[in-house]
């Protein structure tokens, strides 16, 4: 982590000046929002830390239009509270991960988008990238530019929002973002199965996902994870969430329970218990405070169990098996190889180099895309490059 001086611009123009000056003088910048995900991916020596902390205004919020425009430094918690007042939500259910990553700051909207992080509702509502409608930013060239729009449906020009989402601040510094917001569900319930092993649990989640139940969360907590608060269960817990209007949730819960009956006894969590349960899934609480390296495996959902099976460690399954959290001492090369073989990829969030080094035609293409926005390597140098 950098010991370089921190700059907190208060306007997009000040961001522009800082980046342009760095470019002109051959200096390199680390970009931070709340700094909560700062430990993910190593940034090479930088001369300046550029913080979005003071760019923290909600610029325009039109609940009727389902859009919200804000500066990137707005705190996620503040934003969530603001849209909740209107009965709305960020449907991709962004995780905060402060405890998981041992962070002291507060996550920001810009950081959430730059990392493209999404919670359990990803299986139904899509990822952060799917709700990112437009932005203004300063590229590594020291140019202020915009892309997308402030309406929910738009195909004018390249979809640079997709490119910015998950670019970890290596292409441009966001100065304003527009996102889609959606009505929050009026009701929710969670159906739970007990004592299933990982393969059987993934089968059960598959049955739920493949029926007309509109599942908005499907997770499996093996015994070590189920034991922890708030579940305090004696055996593995497999959970499926349904959200929506009351009558609909009731009807779907009944049909889903019938479909899941072959997997054993079913218990139901009411909304009051369902909410904290999914919050701890979203925050990966069962794997917090653990000294082993922390990995996120993104896999074809039905193959989810085969990652941990081949890699010793403790695993949690979200996204019906599509997102697997793993604490393991296994060697990074082995983890990446196993996951690649299964058709997925691995990100190390703690205790190792985060990203996978890229090679071949795709690696060269990615490097050209980086150079299109930041040819001098001013922004977060080295962060997504991966080592070895």
């Amino acid at each position, binding site marked *: 982590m950098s010991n370089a001086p921190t700059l907190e611009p208060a306007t997009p123009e*000040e961001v522009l*000046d800082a980046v*342009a000056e760095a470019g002109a003088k051959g200096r390199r910048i680390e970009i931070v929002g709340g700094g909560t995900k700062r430990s993910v991916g190593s940034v090479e020596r930088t001369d300046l830390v550029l913080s979005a902390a003071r760019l923290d205004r909600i610029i325009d919020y039109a609940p009727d239009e389902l859009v919200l425009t804000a500066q990137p430094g707005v705190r996620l918690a503040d934003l969530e509270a603001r849209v909740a007042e209107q009965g709305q939500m960020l449907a991709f259910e962004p995780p905060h991960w402060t405890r998981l990553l041992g962070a002291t700051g507060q996550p920001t909207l810009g950081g959430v988008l730059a990392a493209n992080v999404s919670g359990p509702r990803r299986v139904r509502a*899509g990822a952060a990238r799917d709700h990112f409608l437009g932005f203004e930013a300063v590229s590594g060239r020291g140019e202020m530019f915009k892309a997308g729009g402030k309406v929910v*449906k738009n*195909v004018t020009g390249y979809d640079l929002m997709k490119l910015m989402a998950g670019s970890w601040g290596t292409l441009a510094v966001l100065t304003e973002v527009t996102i889609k917001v959606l009505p929050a569900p009026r009701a929710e319930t969670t159906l739970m199965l007990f004592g299933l092993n990982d393969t059987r649990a993934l089968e059960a989640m598959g049955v739920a996902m493949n029926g007309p139940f509109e599942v908005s969360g499907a997770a499996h907590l093996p015994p070590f994870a189920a034991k922890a608060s708030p579940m305090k269960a004696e055996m593995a817990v497999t959970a499926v969430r349904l959200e*929506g209007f009351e009558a609909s949730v009731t009807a779907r819960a009944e049909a889903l329970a019938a479909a899941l009956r072959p997997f054993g006894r079913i218990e139901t969590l009411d909304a009051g218990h369902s909410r904290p349960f999914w919050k701890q899934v979203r925050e990966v609480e069962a794997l917090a405070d653990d000294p082993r390296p922390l990995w996120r495996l993104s896999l074809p959902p*039905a193959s989810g169990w085969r990652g941990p099976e081949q890699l010793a460690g403790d695993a949690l399954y979200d996204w019906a098996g599509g997102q697997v959290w793993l604490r393991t001492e296994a060697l990074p090369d082995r983890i990446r190889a196993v996951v690649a073989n299964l*058709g997925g990829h691995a990100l190390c969030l703690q205790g190792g180099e985060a990203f996978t080094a890229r090679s071949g035609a795709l690696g060269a293409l990615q490097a050209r895309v*980086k150079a299109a926005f930041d040819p001098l390597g001013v922004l977060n140098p080295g962060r997504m490059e991966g080592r070895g």
Partner: protein
Amino acid sequence: MKMPVPDAALIARKAEIVRALQQIVPGEHVVSAASELVPFESDGLSAYRQAPIAVVLPETTAQVAEVLRWCQANGVKVVPRGAGTSLSGGALPLADGVVVGLSKFNRVLEVDYPNRCAVVQPGVTNLAITGAVEAEGFYYAPDPSSQIACTIGGNVAENSGGVHCLKYGLTTNNLLGCELVLMSGEIVRLGGKAMDADGYDLLGLVTGSEGLLGIVTEVTVRILPKPETAKAMLLGFASVEDAGGLVGDIIAAGVIPAGLEMMDNPAIRAAEAFVGVGYPVDCAALLIVELDGPQAECDELTGHIRALAAVRNVTFERVSKSEAERQAFWAGRKAAFPAVGRIAPDYFCMDGTIPRGKLPQVLARITELSGHYGLGVANVFHAGDGNLHPLILYDVDIPGDLEKAEAFGADILKLCVSVGGVLTGEHGVGVEKRDLMSEMFDETDLACQQRVKCAFDPGLLLNPGKVFPVLHRCAELGRVHVHRGKLAFPDLPRF
């Protein structure tokens, strides 16, 4: 609308180009005779026509790669083509280019139910994907009106929408991966069956890039379990304000319907005259609201929306009582374009998106413009997401009518941008809106986009003349300019 001046030297090399293409793709798969090129002269934007040097119809990814490699080495421009249903001229050929048609890529390669996805070739039609999975209770959600003909490759290129994208998203929200051939002939795989990929999201970038970045040769799409049931409502109003107000009320009530469409009076009349499904021809505006999900949900929400509609002075109300009736409610809307085609020899379909709250203001202005240009207009509207489709009626045989229609269309799109909207919600920029890009984006914005193009296709050979109003050479765009000397933080240590 002007295209870049064709390179006469390339056109003169036709025989050589055709021979080279025939060596790569043997058999009858290179079309070069003038009479056989006619079907390829235009796409769904039929106001513009141009025959290419030749059309090549490869069958394998290796052939696509070889064709592109040869074209790059020989400076030959390439226009990719699916079914040619684009409404923005994305597949309009170039006089000095070849068309690479993907129609032979027509197989569903794999359906993977455990991972809820299908791997298909780009020439498979949108509807055929649903056809391949519906027996198991699944479907592919994006449903552009042309879904019986349009291909998934074209859907990826245009990021196509449809009447259900309010709830289920556009193409980009329903893709997992693709195989892409670059202009250099290199083949890359973006994404796969996992829910995200590492590195930059190039799949998201390529989706909606209008054939300017590469040619897609395989697509992995998400498939969804079919909702238990669906119900449609027809709601008629004496004023556009009431109809538009109800759309806002429905969303404010926390309901995101599967479809939420509006038609104005000329569109209602044209559709009713064409299909005769009982639309109220005296209403100023008609809403079609579709709800899907469990029966209990459809029933609950139908009641809820009827109550809201009553407050907005609804004058006509029907709720579908059977699947056949639901289909009938949609028949008029889905046939709106051909219906309008019967009342005017030619029409242009616009595609701007606006903040929904601006609808009455925008429709009023469109009516004024209609009077100003002396051309009729009918409006159909994806009301839920603010995507407007004014159909401008004209007659190409009347001298000056086409130019008037183009000017009218441009005025409508400028109007959309001026109220906070955008030029295109789902049809793409293509050639049609290319020269309006500067209404939304300044030179720097466009340069940033064009540098992305340069990262994929530095020779600018893939679909040039589309999307960008001015073609800058990549070397010129690549220069780094040292920014103005003024510093905002004079007190900071300057190292």
